[in-house]
């Protein structure tokens, strides 16, 4: 029996693109467990993939935390200690990218989010995504 699926918070260390698979799966599991539909769970898994990918690409290492808030809200908190995003507003415009994929990924995640926060400085970046179960 999967102990973690019932926990209110799960943390996944992100250190390589292999950890993306784990983060996606755990996100999907938690979403299904909370009663999100299969299509919503797929979307959450894809969003987690984008956030985790950014961590690997721009900071090398970081963490994804999955947190249930009440019965309906799932938060994905992606944090790293990397060099930060120079211009977050620019980064959120679809198509912006300094190296090919950052802008597209974040803009899409923001689009599907019910709650979205991004805080970035040279000391690190934290992106918070919230999804509410319909």
């Amino acid at each position: 029996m999967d102990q973690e699926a019932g926990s209110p918070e799960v943390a996944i260390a992100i250190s390589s693109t292999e950890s993306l698979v784990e983060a996606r799966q755990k996100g999907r599991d938690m979403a299904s467990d909370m009663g999100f539909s299969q299509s919503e769970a797929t979307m959450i898994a894809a969003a987690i993939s984008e956030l985790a990918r950014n961590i690997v690409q721009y900071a090398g290492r970081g963490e994804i935390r999955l947190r249930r808030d009440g019965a309906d809200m799932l938060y994905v908190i992606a944090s790293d200690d990397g060099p930060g995003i120079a211009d977050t507003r620019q980064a959120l415009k679809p198509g912006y990218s300094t190296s090919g994929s950052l802008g597209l990924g974040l803009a899409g995640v923001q689009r599907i989010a019910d709650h979205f926060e991004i805080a970035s400085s040279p000391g690190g970046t934290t992106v918070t995504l919230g999804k509410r179960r319909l």
Partner: protein
Amino acid sequence: MQEREFPKIPPRPHRDEAAQTLLTELVAHLRENRTELRQEWAQRITKARLLTAMTEDEVFTEATAVYDQYVEALETGTFEALQAYARNLSERIIPRGVETDEVVGIVLLLRDVLARSLFAKYQHDFAKLNRILDAYEPAANRIANTVAVGFVQERERIIREQQEAIRDLSTPVLQVRERLLILPMIGAIDPQRARQLTEQLLHGIRGTRAKVVVIDLTGVPAVDSNIANHLVQTVEASRLLGATVIVTGLSPAIAQTLVNIGVDLGKMNTVGDLQGGIEQAERLLGYRVALSAGEDKPTGTAFD
């Protein structure tokens, strides 16, 4: 089917030895007097007019199972089995019309029946009675809580499923021909319904191997920009599944909303009415071979 996991019950507080000894004694008493206590409980359930949706035999069968689970939970101090049983029981009795207050009521009745039998047994040793009750009460309260919470959660889950099923009925995806699906939409569409609709359509495309889908909006006078956006996304997702989408019955209001959100209506495959849309779909699928003179060529092709 994926089983839902309910929140885990927090680990039981540490039991000291004295309390454990008392509980063991208590459990032995409850097991010895199982027949009488169960009987008394079942009678009190009937007298309190609870579980009227069930027959006496059914009440007795469930009472037996609950009693045994109750005693087991007292003995082991673990509640997972009880929670699982409570959910299982709830799943069976909720469709019969049993209400939350009835379930809470019968568990509290059992607690009382057992407490009274303890009074009767230890009435001559007041100090011991107190100690036994000290050991019994927290456990009994947790049991009542576990059962009630399990029931409520199951109820919520069933209500959600029923709502989904009702929505399934009211937004049909119809297969009218081989490889051709029609989705007639009627009335107001909220985000939940829109999401369910899209899921049904996309799964329908896959399940029936549809190559053409006609989404008919004749019955929908207007939508807000979020739903309009959702419609466009549904069309795009259908294309990823290899299907062509024809939109029919577009009201001027919806057309304007689509334009407002940046859709190029010229690129969207639209036809005035449902009948026209079906005819075009049939042409695309090769059901109608000849185009009569003067008919326009279809604006989209099935295999882009």
